[in-house]
């Protein structure tokens, strides 16, 4: 029987594949990579594309990933898949948008934190919550 390795494909939002595999072919940044068991340690970025898995027993399966990272240890292969298409300029754009939102939402505010005000407000809110709790207890609530 062919040798196998443990293959994990995970994304931040879910686990995609976790089982034994005989071979996996993935879209590396510099070209497709075919990984067999006992490959030496490798770390690579992946492009968007198809990952072809040969499961134990020879059954083939393929999943699509939108880029990510590949970590190879001799007996464990991990693919950390992205959930969104990533590119430096796309990320840059998202960062700009986040900055802009912050500027718009908080246009006329003080850049120095007013700790006295913050603590007063929090103390008030907490006192209110405590009072509610107390009233409930007094009424013989739950």
């Amino acid at each position: 029987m062919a040798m196998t390795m443990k293959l994990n494909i995970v994304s931040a939002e879910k686990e995609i594949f976790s089982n034994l595999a005989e071979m996996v072919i993935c879209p590396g940044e510099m070209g497709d990579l075919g990984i067999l068991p006992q490959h030496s340690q490798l770390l690579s970025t992946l492009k968007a594309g198809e990952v072809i898995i040969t499961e134990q027993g020879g059954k083939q399966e393929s999943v699509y990933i939108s880029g990510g990272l590949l970590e190879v240890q001799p007996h464990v292969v991990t693919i950390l898949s992205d959930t969104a298409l990533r590119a430096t300029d796309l990320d840059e754009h998202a960062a700009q948008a986040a900055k802009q939102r912050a500027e718009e939402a908080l246009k006329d505010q003080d850049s120095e934190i007013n700790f006295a005000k913050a603590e007063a407000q929090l103390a008030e809110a907490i006192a209110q919550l405590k009072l509610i709790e107390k009233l409930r207890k007094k009424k013989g609530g739950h």
Partner: protein
Amino acid sequence: MASGKEIRSQISSIKNTQKITRAMEMVAASKMRKAQDRMSASRPYAQKMIEVVRHLALAHTEYRHTYLIDREAKRVGYIVISSDKGLCGGLNTNVFKETVASMKAWHEQEVEIDVCVIGTKASGFFKRIGGNVVSHAEHLGDEPSVESLIGSVKVMLDAYHEGRIDRLFVVFNKFVNTMTQQPIVAQMLPIGASQTEANQSREARYHEVSEEDSGAHMTHHWDYLYEPDAEEVIDALLMRYIESLVYQGVVENMACEMAARMVAMKSATDNAGDMIDDLQLVYNKSRQAAITQELSEIVAGAAAV
């Protein structure tokens, strides 16, 4: 004493409120389950990520990333995660209290603070009290995606990379159980640097699973093969690592929000029930008094004839 009609209308209005709070309670309960599922679904990624980062720390890499280097803190960054909606008891208040306490400690050391807010409530809070808010994400919805966080997190990572901030913290609620949510301030950058007490417990929790695989067969010196090159790969890896930590925080906070809302709405429903009972008693008493009065009037009238 209020007239029968007035009390009746008051009772029916409270009943309507009770219906709403009961519906909200049930909605929150079902959303909480989904949020918990999402929380556990995102865990494998974070764990794998930590394993890889640990391997990386053990490997003898020729390139040391800025995220791993401890610098003197002159300016620190906070990512504050809150809910988008209210009606969830003291959830956000507790997070802000923890945040302000931690920020104040830095402030006393004359360290400046940059803030990244996630969630409408946090942005409202910092709008009221001031603070240098550099990035902002809100209305993430019930199914937050990593995509919606990339921008805000990148602003902070860039700031760290360029040396504008020397520490990065994340503040969120940790889901202990349905009744208990614990606000936590955790240090994210530099990775593996001197960590706050709160962080240690969190790290311990995250590292539990990866413990066994890192120690045993990783003692000898080795390094990865990198493609295309070490710098690029490690950059991409660490960026995703931080993003996944923030995403985990958001998802966990979401589960906390739903749990807190469920509890708050349950007690609101109970309170409405108590009020209805009290009013019903008053109503019955006044009705009985009216009947008694009417009877005695009739009897008195009959006696007079």
